[in-house]
């Protein structure tokens, strides 16, 4: 039997599976590359030229980069400060603030923008609160500052969560050594904690940057002219400009992703995570109450503020029932259907995305296949591509192909969503596959279990927590999504985000507020289960 011993065990009997996984993965990668490829091809087809189309892009491009940088820096600073305060100091009530701090993630940016507009609008909460002080009119906050504020307020949890997780696993002896060597808490923070959290901060800031460059709802509502806004407004009247700007946006996103990966691979000198207890509390002393005021103020503005503004409009709307139009127009009749649509399309997308990613995850994590790694990287770039670019590519492609009947159909919508959010499922699925110990698989193999039976009885139960988490992330993202939904949703199939968008465009603040509260409530529950509870496992919340 020497030949049998020589042959590698993983190949025995699993060639078919390996082949199948490979074919699926390559097909998946092709689908993921399609939108970008299509845009490039289309740009040649429409003979997009530098002078005509790219030159007009300078303004929007500059605005996009400027906004994304400002938001990333602000979010990174606030989130790191907040994470440190809540993880390391004796701030009063830090358990409560720790639970609330990540929750602004439940607000889609366009809902945040509506809250800002509605809050400062005539008859809004701000005016109401200020009128006793004799201030009759409040300025309208929009443009750069509005977009900057809204995006910072609702994206900082992307940095807060990884930094908080990092602080929970940073070996306490590092900070204690620094203190024993004579340093004050702030010096310890800047010389030890910050350098050791840089990877987490930059990974989180990258997400904020990508979110900002691809954000469409907030900048459109607040009238700040970025690339996404010009792509959207030109898509019907000037396809060439729209495509040129879409390409530019895609390239920008990809360049930033690659740059961040390069940078973070350079700074590899970080302490490995430790499971020991975290460092002892820094005593704030006389800074206790000012610090708490700052934390409460921030969480108030990012979480309580928008809810209060929306709630205020809803209450006013209820008090003035019967109006057909205007800010106070309010109807409860059509709230259930879009909520159901939002949940069902989100669930379908989550299922499709996880099911599509699982074979690829198995290929990369179990078989350590090179082909799998390449496909996996291509899939992850899908996440970097802004949703609007994906939507644009799909709509142009379908409209110019024999598949025109699929335009604005549910399958196409799910496909576009999966493409955009599949990367989230891919990473989690890979981790899930790795949680199945190989010896266990071999044991069940030697016990004579058939492959299919083995998958359902051994692998799937072990992977299910990870897969559920991945599916949950996709569901959450899909529920909050706007540009793809706006461009590709079937006529008559309204989701909450479509309804909110329409109401906001009509300045029906009470209606937009009501629908926003429903959407935020749904996504807050998911955010809680998926993100906040996980961090609680990592550290002392």
């Amino acid at each position, binding site marked *: 039997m020497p030949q049998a011993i020589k042959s590698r065990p993983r190949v025995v009997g699993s060639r078919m599976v390996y082949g199948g996984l490979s074919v699926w993965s390559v097909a998946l990668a092709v689908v993921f590359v399609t939108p970008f490829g299509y845009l490039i091809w289309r740009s040649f087809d429409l003979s997009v030229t530098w002078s005509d189309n790219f030159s007009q892009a300078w303004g929007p491009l500059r605005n996009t980069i400027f906004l994304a940088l400002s938001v990333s820096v602000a979010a990174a600073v606030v989130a790191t400060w907040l994470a440190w305060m809540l993880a390391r100091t004796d701030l009063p009530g830090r358990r409560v603030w720790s639970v609330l701090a990540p929750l602004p993630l439940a607000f889609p940016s366009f809902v945040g923008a509506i809250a800002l507009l509605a809050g400062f609008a005539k008859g809004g909460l701000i005016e109401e609160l200020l009128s006793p002080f004799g201030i009759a009119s409040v300025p309208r906050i929009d443009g750069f500052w509005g977009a900057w504020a809204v995006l910072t307020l609702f994206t900082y949890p992307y940095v807060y969560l990884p930094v908080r997780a990092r602080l929970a696993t940073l070996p306490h*002896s*590092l900070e*204690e050594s620094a203190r*024993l*060597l*004579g340093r004050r808490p702030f010096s310890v923070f800047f010389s030890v904690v910050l350098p050791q959290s840089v990877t987490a901060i930059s990974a989180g800031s990258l997400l904020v940057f990508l979110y900002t460059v691809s954000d469409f709802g907030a900048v459109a509502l607040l009238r700040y002219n970025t690339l996404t806004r010009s792509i959207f407004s030109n898509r019907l009247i000037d396809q060439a400009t729209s495509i040129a700007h879409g390409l530019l946006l895609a390239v920008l996103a990809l360049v930033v992703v690659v740059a961040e990966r390069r940078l973070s691979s350079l700074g590899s*000198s*970080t302490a490995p995570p430790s499971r020991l207890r975290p460092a002892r509390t820094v005593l704030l002393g006389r800074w206790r109450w000012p610090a708490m005021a700052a934390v409460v103020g921030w969480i108030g503005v990012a979480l309580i503020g928008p809810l209060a503004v929306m709630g205020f409009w809803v209450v006013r709307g209820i008090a003035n029932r019967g109006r057909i139009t205007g800010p106070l127009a309010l109807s409860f009749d059509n709230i259930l259907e879009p909520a159901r649509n939002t949940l069902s399309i989100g669930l379908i997308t989550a299922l499709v995305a996880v099911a599509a990613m699982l074979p690829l995850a198995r290929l990369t994590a179990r078989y350590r296949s090179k082909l799998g790694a390449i496909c996996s990287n291509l899939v992850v770039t899908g996440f970097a591509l802004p949703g609007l670019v994906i939507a644009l590519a799909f709509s142009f492609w379908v409209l110019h192909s024999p598949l025109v009947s699929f335009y604005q159909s549910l399958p196409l919508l799910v496909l576009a969503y999966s493409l955009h959010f599949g990367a989230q499922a891919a990473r989690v699925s890979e981790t899930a596959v790795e949680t199945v110990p190989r010896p266990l698989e071999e044991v069940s193999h030697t016990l004579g279990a058939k492959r299919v039976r083995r998958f359902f009885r051994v692998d799937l139960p072990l992977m299910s927590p990870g897969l559920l988490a991945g599916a949950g992330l996709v569901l959450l993202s899909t529920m909050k999504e706007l540009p793809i939904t706006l461009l590709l949703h079937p006529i008559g199939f309204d989701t909450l985000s479509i309804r909110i968008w329409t109401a906001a465009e009509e300045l029906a603040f009470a209606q937009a507020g009501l629908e926003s509260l429903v959407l935020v409530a749904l996504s807050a529950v998911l955010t809680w289960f998926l993100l906040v509870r996980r961090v609680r496992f990592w550290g002392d919340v």
Partner: protein
Amino acid sequence: MTSHDPTAMTSHDPTAMTSHDPTVMTSHDPMLSVVGVSKSFGSVPVLEDITFSVPRAATLVLLGPSGCGKTTLLRLIAGLERPDKGEIWRGEELLTGGGTYIDVRHRRIGMVFQDLALFPHMSVFKNVAYGLRPGHRRNREIVEEAIALVNLEGLEHRRPHQLSGGQQQRVALARALVPRPEVILFDEPFASLDTSLRIEVRSEVHELLHTLGTTAVFVTHDQEEAFVIGEEVVVMKDRQIVQHDRPSVLYRQPASPWVGLFVGHANMLPATVQGTTASTCIGDIELLESSTVSTTNGTLGNVEDSSDSSYNSNSSVNVLVRPEHLQLFDGKEAKVELVEYHGHDTMYAVKLTDNQKMLKVLVPGSSPQFDHGAEVALAYVGPPTTAFPAEGG
């Protein structure tokens, strides 16, 4: 287990007296004193009424099984935790107690952590320089001196992860020494090294501390390490100090059977006492006249209580017999059950024919003299030893 225990044995043993030598006595010029310290985490007590002191320029080892509270004690001294009760002094300065709490950074106490806690993002040079106030002109010189002291010249620009375990150890030591602390604490610093390297690094650290005359407190659960490094050893068990002595005293005159077994291999032979002689099944064994038990009073070799000078006649005791103090001959008293050959010596387990009791015997020499199953006789060849009152006796 104090010397005031009526059943404990006290008297005027010469070895005990040497520990009264004023140069070794700790109470005259203690560099560090811990007085009546207790600590709980929530409702879980971790330290109860701990009192001891460390003489200037001495090395003291806190020895105990894991979970006995020794690391917490070290962290209390460093100021990383606050005691619930008691005081901690550095020389004449009160660090903790009675409402006083000197901040960690003002204590002039250095610490080497179990994981060494080198800053991964800094070079060796920057790690060592971390404890100095930035911007001083002599800083560079001081750091270079410290790096030379621990033989790390040429590695200044490496990052910690590019160093071997032993080199990392030396960086951690240099970093702790640079701010010139009055006391330096070590929390099982050699635990991560493999055996041969551990012994090598341990000797280096030992020698360096000796040369520099630094006062040091080590925490370890390894008896051998405690004996090698410690001029004084504090044995801890279940949140309390059970004995504080020099290693040689600890080994010969443990305060309890538990200590005796914790600090080395031991046989406990039942016997009856006549005067200072114990009759055991392998013959008579001379007993030490005193037990130099010092527990919680914080000084070495407390033998003040000398009135209770001998054992009650005919009382039942267990005699502590170290395996190396037994010899094997040809005979019919016992049978060899197990032979463990170590190279420099051989450990035998023999079973007495009379009462089926198993005894450990350590015989020096480069090859085993007896085989498994051989019939042997035993003799006690050691110095006077210690006995403990038998259970219920």
